[in-house]
């Protein structure tokens, strides 16, 4: 496993103004995510984990400190460059799937590519390949509303993989699923991790966090605890 850093946080602060008060959502967060690692971020609501995820996903910028994604300082990027970064280097998986209702499964998978200037037959083939890997080959023309929750989340995972991102961000990705489906999805994440993908999984469930190689606990905008762990998947 290489030790190349995909995401580097250096004394990152994110401050919100609430009237005259300054609220530190993140207060001096420093850590690195290296290629191929599987991170789990935990914490109570209001601990700053959502803010951290937004920063990791280039949806937001630090107030101070630096965040480098694949070696580039996010603070130096303008809005369009941030968009381009999201479409090329990041994959998002959300709790409520967040598929686009008017598009069919294949189009939903391909949305990140649509916002890139150039994509070709190889990308289209890749989208088909991902759909079949997720067991959706026969659903490619269906609308999201015609799919079960588990299937929708699989579409979202395929969408997160279609641009071969540097970093995959999952936000409570199993939160809306029943335990059996959730287990299938988590197995899928293990599989992706073992293929060398870099994953970040925000969760508040301990059994989900157990599967990750690193766990980061947030509290009041600071890192409470950060450790490497032997993975449940590896033990099994």
């Amino acid at each position, binding site marked *: 496993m290489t030790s190349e850093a995909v995401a580097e946080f250096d004394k990152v602060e994110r401050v919100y103004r609430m009237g005259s008060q300054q609220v530190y959502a993140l207060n001096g967060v420093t850590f690195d995510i290296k290629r191929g690692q599987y991170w789990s971020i935990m914490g109570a609501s209001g601990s700053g984990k959502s803010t951290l995820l*937004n920063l990791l996903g280039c949806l937001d910028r630090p107030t101070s400190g630096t965040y480098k994604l694949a070696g580039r300082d996010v603070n130096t990027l303008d809005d*369009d460059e941030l*968009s381009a970064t*999201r*479409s090329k280097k990041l994959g998002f998986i959300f709790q409520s799937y967040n598929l*686009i209702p*008017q598009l069919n499964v294949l189009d939903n998978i*391909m949305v990140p590519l*649509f916002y890139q200037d150039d994509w070709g037959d190889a990308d289209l083939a890749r989208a088909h390949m991902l759909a079949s890997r997720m067991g959706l080959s026969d659903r490619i023309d269906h609308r999201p509303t015609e799919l079960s929750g588990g299937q929708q989340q699989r579409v979202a995972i395929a*969408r997160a993989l279609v641009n071969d991102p540097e970093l995959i961000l999952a936000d409570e990705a199993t939160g809306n699923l029943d335990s059996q489906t959730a287990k299938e999805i988590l197995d899928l994440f293990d599989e992706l991790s073992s293929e060398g993908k870099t994953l970040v999984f925000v969760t508040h469930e301990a059994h989900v966090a157990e599967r990750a190689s690193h766990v980061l606990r947030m509290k009041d905008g600071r890192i409470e605890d950060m450790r490497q762990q032997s993975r449940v998947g590896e033990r099994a």
Partner: protein
Amino acid sequence: MIRSPLLRTIRTGIHSLMLHKLRSMLTTLGVLFGTSSVISMLAIGEGASYEAQEQIKLLGSQNVILRSVKPPDNPNSSSNSRVITYGITDADFQRIEQTFPGVGHVVPVRMLQQEIRVADRALNPRLMATTPLYQEVTGRLLWEGRFISKEDERNLSNVCVLGTEVARYLFPFESALGQRVKIGSDYFTVVGTLAPRISQSGTPAAPGTEVTGEIFIPFQTARQWFGKLQVKRRAGSRTMEQVDLHEVVIEVTDPKSVPYVAAATREMLQRFHKTPDYEVVVPLELLARAEETKRIFSIVLGSIAGISLLVGGIGIMNVMLATVTERTREIGIRRALGAKRRDIVTQFLVETVCLSVGGGLMGVALGLAIPLVVEHFADMRTIVTLSAPVLAFTISAGTGVLFGIYPAWRAAAMDPVEALRHE
């Protein structure tokens, strides 16, 4: 899989609109009715003005027409058997003929009140006594035979030329040429018939129905037989009118000098007539007035069209603003997946333009159909010029762009994080 980003955006936009079919349909109605009303109103206006212009052109654009007008009854003259003398006189006619430069032809016309009869068929058409030049000046075309000639004038011949309707009515099954027609108490030989002015419906008038038409006899012949005095009998009273000439048509050689001839004629008549017992009709002036009317009509129409399209545009903007709010989450997702602000702008602008263009296209279809219906049921002439649908459609599409900009900008200005959190 569609490769072109714009085409794909358009397809996605149509899909999005199809998710709410009724709402999209209702939204397009404003533009639809705006567009169709512009096209159909323009068509009706164009048709009406065309007809007016055609009628004016029949009078001849190089002509100045003088008409005798009976002055309002003078209450002081109580006697009901007095002879009323009014109108354009022979002296006027001679003055015009002799003194005006730039005048080509001057043609006198007298109207006569006489019954026309062939066997048991009788008519009261417009019986006009005139000179050979009349045909040339008014540009009337002959159907058969010839018009009144100079020889007829000189010899005081009893000849006549029939208008189409009169000829059809009096001689429905045979040629009128060479037939004899009784006018008043004298017989006249038909030497020619005129072609119809405008091609009208081909059915001849049924016997007994009112036939209006014209019949022409030589001017000097009429003077000889019927004199200048006309007796009108009306319920117990009898009025006598003495009118030299009912109409004088002046043809001006150079079209540019029509206004000067008209002005000079007016001035001259004013000097010799104490009461206004005449009118001067200048087709060219009427034409100019018709143009002016049409221009005002166009401005009014343009304003109405503008207002209705404005209302349609506001309707679209209203719905699009609601749509943007409703789809905040979708915007957040798209932004998270890499959409740039301008991608979001394009997406919503395309949807708005789809709405307005859709409404515009349906409006053009409806706007082309309405004139046909009007023409069929209201018997009005309508003219659809190519520019009307093109203009209406362009404006409706432009409305979409104009009123789509703000909602699209609102959508693009959203913070991705906020938008994603939106329920």
